């Protein structure tokens, strides 16, 4: 089972106000955890919504497990095998977690009461919500609401799970827990994780793409992206706190007792005598990729 995306474009509006969210995206996504990384406004949510059958592309083709998403029949078939957690998750505050999941299960076509109850109980357990299942959603924290979101996405035991910015706003413990859950789920299905948080991809995905301004800038494994930054990552310590310049991009800054240590990416750090080469991380690879793209004429 795979997802094949061919020459996919999406433009919102028309004329001078038109916004090109996707510009000829080609991707093939197989089973396992797939990370989609990119800055805000890169087109990630548009791509997720197209895959979820919610948004129609302007041009191009999407085949999901052999179903064509451009047809109504294909959309319904894909939605039946899909679990979807949107970026902005709304809930019904007056319902309890169990009631909300029961309602979502009905909408997903789980008509048999006993099967539905068993599935709701199972997903409550998977999401770690069993203890609060009968509490109203209006009393839930942000992390608990995200867990309700993932629980509803799992109700129909989906073959494809699409999660859009799932860890935004979660505390570190919740984030780790959430990532582990996604990795467990990815063992026998397609899980697409869309995020702008590099660490989420680094910890979970063996396959990824970087999307920026509607274009795929990178396609490969996190290790491939890290390899791209080999030899261009430096650590520079300054006592006066002046930021390194000369075409270097600061990835992180650490205040020390007697100065500031910068982690930078750039081809040449010779202007800074104290610069020491460093092992690249995925974040360095990502910043290098985006920086190299910005250096090209027109930002392309």
């Amino acid at each position, binding site marked *: 089972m795979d997802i094949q995306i061919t020459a996919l474009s999406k433009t919102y509006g028309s004329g001078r106000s038109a916004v090109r969210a996707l510009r000829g995206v080609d991707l093939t996504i197989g089973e396992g955890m797939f990370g989609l990384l990119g800055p805000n406004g890169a087109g990630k949510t548009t791509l997720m*919504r197209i895959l979820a*059958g*919610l948004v129609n592309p302007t041009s191009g083709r999407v085949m999901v497990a052999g179903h064509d998403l451009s047809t109504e029949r294909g959309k319904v078939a894909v*939605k039946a095998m899909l679990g979807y957690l949107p970026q902005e998750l*709304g809930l019904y505050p007056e319902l309890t977690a169990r009631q909300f999941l*029961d309602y*979502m299960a009905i*909408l997903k*076509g789980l008509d048999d009461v006993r099967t539905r109850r068993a599935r709701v109980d199972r997903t409550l357990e998977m999401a770690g919500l069993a203890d609060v299942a009968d509490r109203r959603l209006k009393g839930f924290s942000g992390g608990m609401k995200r867990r309700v979101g993932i629980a*509803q996405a799992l109700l129909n035991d989906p073959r494809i799970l699409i999660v859009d910015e799932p860890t935004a706003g979660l505390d570190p413990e919740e984030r780790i827990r959430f990532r582990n859950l996604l990795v467990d789920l990815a063992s026998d299905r397609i899980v697409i994780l869309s995020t702008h948080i590099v660490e989420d991809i680094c910890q979970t995905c063996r396959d990824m793409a970087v999307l920026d301004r509607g274009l795929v800038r990178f396609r490969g494994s996190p290790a491939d992206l890290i390899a791209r930054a080999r030899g261009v990552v430096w650590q520079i310590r300054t006592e006066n706190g002046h930021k390194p310049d000369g075409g270097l991009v600061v990835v992180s800054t650490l205040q020390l007792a007697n100065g500031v240590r910068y982690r930078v990416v750039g081809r040449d750090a010779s202007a800074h005598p104290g610069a020491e080469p460093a092992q690249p991380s995925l974040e360095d690879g990502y910043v290098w990729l985006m920086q190299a793209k910005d250096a090209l004429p027109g930002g392309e």
Partner: protein
Amino acid sequence: MNLLYHLRIYRREHLALPAGLWMLFALMVAFARMDDGRACEMACTFLGFVLPLMAGILAASAIVDDPVLELQLAAPRAPWRILVERLAVLLGIVALAALAYQVYLGAMGIDLTGLGNPAARQLAWLVPSLALMGLSSLVALALVQGTGGALLVGLLWLLQILARGWFVASPWARYLFLFMRVRYADHPALAANELCLLGLGMLLVIDAGWLLRKTERYL
């Protein structure tokens, strides 16, 4: 089960509107019951004017104000089903209010035979309610804004009350007049008027369902 959840998720402040109006008109009728003509007038006002306006206003926010609409639309079912189920629940609420009010009127001894027999009497609220629900849901979906649908319904309702004489006299507008049974029950065009409004209401709901297929407008 599904309809029950539609009812449970309905915003409480919206449910307060029919309940509040019901009680207000129940009180007004109770105070006016010594004057049978006045009490009957009030009862007709509630059934024929107030309930349809309420139905129209409630229908305007049936879809576009749903906080979980993205998940609803991602479910493997036709989007028009959401609309039909929600309108059915709203119609159920309005029907309950209408029937309970008639039982109350019966207990108070207020005569409503002027609106026809008990079955025909239901058309006084049902027909305009369906027409206004169709209109407001279509406008709300077209504008992607519940307020717009409610506002248009309110304006049309007011216009028809103020210009009722013109509507009834007009050879074509009489078929679009919402309050024919409650104001002119003996009018020869009553049956055609009700058929026309029912058909129009259905057509508007179908159009609203068609609009809802364009799911990206509502995300």
